[in-house]
């Protein structure tokens, strides 16, 4: 059933899918979203904020399902998906890093920053192990 026969890739994709599903439930369910906002330090949150959180939750849900699809396909079929994931997670990590660095009082290493870094690292490992890195199969001419 699983066409990807590289065990580390299967483990990483499964874990990232699980984390994405957890976050999607957190953002899509109003009670969970409220608790999430409270834990971020009491930011002001209105109906519009929850609307956008719901949208992000939907994207997380799609990514969780996308990871499952990636498990059921060969690495060659997933080349573009892996590139999108690496770009997305790199940008998310940079954003989390930027927020941590520019916070008043110096910020610090927070759980979301570490999670974003780990997810980026995970997708990089998956991408590298698939043998699909740009340069190995993209011709620039």
């Amino acid at each position, binding site marked *: *059933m*699983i066409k990807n026969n590289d065990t580390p890739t299967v483990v990483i994709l499964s874990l990232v899918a699980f984390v994405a*599903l957890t976050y999607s*439930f*957190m953002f*899509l*369910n109003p*009670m969970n979203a409220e608790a999430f906002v409270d834990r971020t330090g009491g930011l002001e949150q209105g109906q519009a904020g929850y609307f956008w959180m719901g949208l992000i939750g939907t994207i997380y849900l799609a990514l969780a399902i996308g990871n499952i699809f990636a498990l059921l396909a060969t690495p060659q079929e997933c080349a573009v998906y892996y590139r999108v994931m690496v770009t997305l997670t790199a940008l998310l990590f940079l954003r989390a890093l930027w927020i941590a660095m520019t916070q008043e009082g110096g910020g610090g290493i927070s759980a979301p920053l570490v999670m974003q870094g780990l997810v980026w690292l995970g997708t990089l490992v998956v991408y590298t192990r698939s043998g699909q890195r740009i340069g190995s199969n993209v011709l620039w001419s």
Partner: protein
Amino acid sequence: MFKTNDRVVDIAMGVSFFIAFMYAAMMIFDPDVLLMRYDDPSSNPDMDTLKVFLFWLGVANAGMITGIIYMGYKGMDRAFFAFAVPFLIFSIYWNITPAQNSGNFAGIILVSLGLLGLIIARARSGLPRNPFDIPKADSYFGTNDMVTKVLLFLGLIMNAFNVVIYFIRPEGLIEDSPFLIMSAEAQYFSMAMMFMSLAWVLTLLYQMRAGYSMTMIVVGLMQSTLMFVGMLNFMIRNNFSTTDGNPLLAMFITTFFVGSVILFFRNQSKA
């Protein structure tokens, strides 16, 4: 699709899929919509309690749609019908009281349509007509893998325990869970959890005789993952408080999840 080349089967399964998908999405992500439509002004139950039960029902529907997608690629599977048909019959029965109280019969009509779709698809798919004509496998659950066998037996025992305990002490689940508040409605909603376990008992009994089903392992994996993620979110929401939860329920959900993951990864290469 469904390895039948029959357009009627595709359409009938498509109708069942669409209805289950709609209910799964509503029950998991926006249960308020359903609760508002079945509101009985004479009562005032705790809505958060009802939402917890609706979430579980949504999870059952999400499992069903996963099973339909899986069968779309791999072919029809009797074990799925041994779960889905009784579950939908129980759901129709369960819907009668809320429909009578609110005058809203949409749920009964839609779930009946979903059931009809499954019955038509099953009748045309070439599976044996008599549901009780079950071939006997060489061994229990049709496998010599001890881990698979033990986990499936464990699933059967735990679900049977859920059913039996409901009849002995129907209020037990709500009273033992600090996050659930007792009301006549909550008590009625908790009956649906027993129906879900009963449907699992039926399909596991079928599999014990005929051999394990990869379709149902995928259904179980989907349901257990959603339940586990839901539980995780509840724990995060309550700052991992040890006093707000139900340890027995948490153990059941965790065992269901871990067992399903092991079953899936041990057997997926044979599917």
